[in-house]
């Protein structure tokens, strides 16, 4: 295959990270962006899952195969694709490669879509600090990796900046490379129960599917939980617990994916780092729970914090 075939008529392709489609996290979010583009541009597109225990070379050949078949852009979900995308981008200079959650791989035809999760998490921290009555809040992370620690860092800072006396309980479910922590709801449930028993009344989770366990446990006690990635208040599977979902820290991956595809379709492909933060609404707190909107103190504080961050008056840490 040569790069001249990449005429763009086959549409965009996504290569997923471990977990793949159905993870209700950023793999699904990326797919949502692809779907939107499919509807608009009318091509099929392609999305592929990784196999267990594969190495960088396998990822690289997956990307190259997609480029060879003429997909453009080709998007890798997750930092695991950093190395492989650099390799594939060199082999197929006429194809645009998107890389979500990483800015290590650089190249003219590489688009690094990065999110300031710590900023959104900071707002979640502010919200939690206002919502708590016991002055104990909790954070449940799926797997103790830097990405999730970014969530924790922003959240803790948000809470402490609002009220330094509040205790934040942090709990991770598993250690890498054991990624079970993103897929075992029962672990999330027990971790949340532990924090509830320790008097936490607002819990923020960044645990992928295991977060469903967190939400279920918190809802059972009638306390507040803060969702992640997408607006979990609106998720069908979580409908029974939605009244307990105070808000969610959303990460607009669908839009990022869509924008990239659109730029390629429009013949003016993006390039370099595209940062999605509070300013661009790439990360945000959702407001679909009416109870949330009723807490005017809280929403005001969140709005203020958002302004301060955008204005650069507050810098949010990316590590705890």
């Amino acid at each position, binding site marked *: 295959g040569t790069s001249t075939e990449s005429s763009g008529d086959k549409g965009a392709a996504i290569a997923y990270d471990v977990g793949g489609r159905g993870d209700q996290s950023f793999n699904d979010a990326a797919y949502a962006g692809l779907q939107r583009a499919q509807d608009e541009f009318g091509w099929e597109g392609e999305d592929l899952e990784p196999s267990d225990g594969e*190495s960088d070379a396998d990822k690289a050949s997956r990307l190259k195969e997609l480029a060879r078949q003429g997909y453009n852009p080709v998007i890798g979900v997750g930092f695991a694709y950093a190395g492989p995308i650099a390799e594939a981008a060199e082999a197929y200079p006429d194809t645009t490669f998107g890389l979500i959650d990483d800015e290590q791989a650089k190249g003219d035809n590489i688009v690094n879509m990065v999110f300031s999760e710590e900023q959104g998490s900071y707002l979640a921290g502010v919200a939690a600090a206002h919502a708590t009555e016991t002055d104990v809040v909790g954070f449940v992370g799926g797997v103790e990796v830097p990405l999730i620690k970014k969530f924790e860092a922003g959240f803790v800072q948000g809470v402490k900046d609002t009220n330094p006396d509040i205790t934040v309980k942090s709990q991770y479910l598993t250690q890498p490379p054991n990624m079970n922590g993103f897929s075992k709801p029962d672990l999330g449930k027990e971790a949340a129960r532990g924090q509830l028993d320790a008097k936490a009344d607002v819990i923020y989770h960044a645990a992928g599917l295991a977060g469903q366990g967190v939400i279920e446990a918190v809802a059972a006690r009638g306390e507040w939980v803060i969702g992640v990635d997408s607006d979990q208040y609106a998720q069908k599977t979580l409908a029974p617990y939605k009244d307990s979902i105070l808000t969610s820290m959303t990460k607009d991956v669908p839009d990022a994916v869509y924008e990239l595809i659109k730029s390629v379709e429009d013949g003016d492909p993006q390039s370099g780092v595209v940062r999605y933060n509070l300013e661009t609404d790439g990360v945000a707190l959702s407001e679909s729970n009416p109870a949330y909107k009723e807490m005017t103190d809280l929403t005001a504080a969140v709005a203020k914090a958002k302004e301060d961050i955008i204005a650069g008056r507050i810098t949010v840490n990316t590590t705890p």
Partner: protein
Amino acid sequence: MSDGGGDVTDGGKPGSPEPGASARTPGGRFDTDRLIMAFGGPVLALGVAVLLTSVVLLLSGRNPVEPYVLMVEYAGNADIQVNILNRSTTYYIAALAVAVGFRMNLFNIGVDGQYRLAAVIAAIVGAAIELPAPLHVLAIVLVAMLTGAFWAGIAGILKTTRGVSEVVSTIMLNAIATSIIAYLILPAQFGEQRGNNLTTGLIPESGWFPGFDTGPGGVIYGFIVVAVLLGVLYWLVLNRTRFGFDLRATGASQSAAAASGVDAKRMVFTSMVISGTVAGMAGMPVLLGDSHTYSLVFPVGVGFTGITIALLGRNHPVGIALGALLIAFLDIASQTLDFNGYEREIATIMQGLIVIAVVVSYEAVRRWGLRRQQQRVGEELAAQAAGAAGGNSQNLSKGASA
């Protein structure tokens, strides 16, 4: 325990010997029996596995043939072939590690943990030291071997001194290795954060193992040469040395080996350590040939695949090589199923079916061979007796008339 080392799994133990393959016919000539023994099992098994998978495909309303065609076509690409070869190199070494244990009825489930821990420590050391090219590589590999040996040695010590089943202890040690690795690659310890990834820092170029550049296909890991040598060494040691004989004897019958002078405990410990040493090398193809660092995306689960492959290859180095290629092929070529609207789980199902089919057919062929051999021995002896009947008949008749 044939000289050719051809091994099957019999009902009782994963590493026990195969009578049939060693059964050169009494006269020493090859014949159909021997051919059937050697090829009957695998061929029968592959056929059955493919057939069963096709049934699954048919049941779910899919074309029962096209997936195979697609996969074979896909594997025609040069870069895919290189990937398959590279991945089977890792699998091959891991499977050898498992096989060493199997040959003496030790079940080292811990190859995965040994492999990961060895890769981390080797990567840390490799990034920290500076040596001229070949020495640097050698040092890294040595560290990996020692780490693997150490980690497996714990299970060995626990088994020989405290009687702890190696199955349980290696399961535990796998999990403990995970924790230790998670700790070691923290930025506060030996790790570096790169974006959202954690790595152990890049090994300088002097510590890379040069590969074979095939141009468009990509680079074949140079470590494949080491893997091949490892296979030869494995065969030589097992079949041509006194240590190997002791090891196989222990696998075939622990009690007989002990009575023959093998120190069973030391043997258990030694083979566990050897298994760990080899397991430690399993991470080297990727570490030295590709990633040059240990990070969160380093391949996992290799040790478990190694178990499957060792079983498929009947602990024989050539069999293991074929098994590694087959599994790597299924892993990688199944990618194309996604492109063509098939579920790639088909490949996983096929892997499971192949394992079952292979062992069932090996067992069937083994039994057939054993019976067949006994029959022939009986027949030949009867024929011999008949030949000598002239001398005996007198005695017999005398006995009967008494």
